[in-house]
């Protein structure tokens, strides 16, 4: 369980990234955070694995306040929280397998990882996870030989190899075309259901948010302006969150292409 208690974050330049957030996210939920760019979605998600550090309030993950974590504690926390990025962030010159096995770094001693001496179970785990996202045939390809959608699937496999309790995804489909976007979201949803991994995704496409989320959190100017089940959300809700009418660019579309 993740709990935000009066959490605020002020950046050194004075910008308020988060303003007094109070939110509870339960184990196994699939939460989509929506909002315009600059609304604080990224800051929200990055607080959970402390890529940014909130400046006031408390943030509890599995019952412990993580704001004071440093060094080893912080690495232990991050080991259990996987993160997926908009730009996939794979090492281009390394093979797919090497990129995926990097998910085990937190579990492996420095010396073993430098000399590439992973336990057989870890290597098999990496391969199993590549199979789950249907990209196991690219095992020994260089990461930069893959298409965007394929790279994002590899990054999902990398996160799975971490065996996390929580998956954070920061705009995971923003660089992808509509059919590939749906494919990636479908994998995330499927993993969330099968492994009961709490999943928090940033999106700005409202149609995708409504389709995949259990729960939608709306943000504007660093504040949570909406929080409720996806089933109760309609276009009017989004107009309230965004503070303007809905436009073409807020929709991803393309679902039909996947099904056909």
């Amino acid at each position, binding site marked *: 369980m993740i709990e935000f208690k009066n959490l605020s974050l002020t950046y050194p330049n004075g910008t308020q990234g988060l303003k007094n957030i109070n939110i509870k996210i339960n184990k196994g939920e699939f939460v989509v955070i929506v909002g315009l760019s600059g609304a604080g979605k990224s800051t929200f998600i990055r607080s959970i694995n402390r890529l940014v550090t909130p400046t006031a309030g408390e943030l509890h993950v599995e019952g412990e306040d993580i704001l004071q974590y440093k060094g080893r504690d912080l690495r232990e926390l991050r080991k259990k929280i996987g993160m997926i990025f908009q730009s996939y962030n794979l*090492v281009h010159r390394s093979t797919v397998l090497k990129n995926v096995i990097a998910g085990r770094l937190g579990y492996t001693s420095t010396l073993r990882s430098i000399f590439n001496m992973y336990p057989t179970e870890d290597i098999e785990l990496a391969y199993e996870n590549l199979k789950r996202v249907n990209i196991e045939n690219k095992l020994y390809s260089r990461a930069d030989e893959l298409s965007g959608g394929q790279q994002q699937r590899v990054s999902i496999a990398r996160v799975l190899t971490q065996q996390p309790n929580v998956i954070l995804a920061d705009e995971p489909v923003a660089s992808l075309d509509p059919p590939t976007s749906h494919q990636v979201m479908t994998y995330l949803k499927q993993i969330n259901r099968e492994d009961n991994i709490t999943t928090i995704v940033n999106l700005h496409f409202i149609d995708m948010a409504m389709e995949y989320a259990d729960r939608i959190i709306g943000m504007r100017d660093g504040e949570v302006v909406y929080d409720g089940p996806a089933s109760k959300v309609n276009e009017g809700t989004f107009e309230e969150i965004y503070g303007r009418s809905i436009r073409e660019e807020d929709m991803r579309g393309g679902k039909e292409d996947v099904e056909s």
Partner: protein
Amino acid sequence: MKANIPAKPKNNLKLVKRLISVIAIIAIYVWTFASVNIEWSKIFSMRTIENFDRIIPRFFDPAFQETGSIMLKMIETVFIAYTGSLAAAIIAIPLAFLCASNIVKSRIVNQIGMWILGAVRAFPEVLLAIIFVAAVGPNPFAGVLAISVGSTGMLGKLYSEVIESIDMKIIESLESSGANKLQILFYGIFPQVLPEFLSYAIYRFEIDVRASSVLGVVGAGGIGTLITFAYLNRNWEEVGMILLVIIVVVTIIDQISSFIRKRLV
């Protein structure tokens, strides 16, 4: 035909600035030429022509019988260059990390690193060779030291630029998976920079082969020693042969190195 676009705005100030620069460049050129004291009458004299007549043909009649001993010294030269640039390629890595502002987040440390590399680059190899000959005696080891110190300056600078251009998002994503600093170095940074490091090191080796050919002139080993002896004895056929060997070997190494570098990156 005149293009149908708005006319370029006239800028007289720019024109004046350009005119001043051109005049300044010409003035400096005239001034330097006037002050180096060239005796044109001596240059275009019968003596010059006679000297050329006497010496140049002997260059083109190289002493092939010396090939064996010259090749031996050339190999020594290449070894000096190789050992020196290999040492530099390794020593430059930690220095480059000190200078890279995206890795070491202290302006002061970055500046110190830059300052060390800059100071080292200020010395030409021959000068370094003189210093090291004084320190360790007139042998190839002095040449190796001169080459390695000289190359460290350039490689460190180039390496640090490579490090500064890496994709930091990859570092962030490794951090977010709980990897420690050393693991990030080996999984996130090295794969991004090593091919470029290697490419620069090979390029520097190419330069070092040329640089170490002259080091022997000041006694730091290699083929330069032979050049000095042959030159002092006015043995122009041997000088010609030495030059021929240097040109051939350097060209071959250049070709091989650019072939390898093309496949690396």
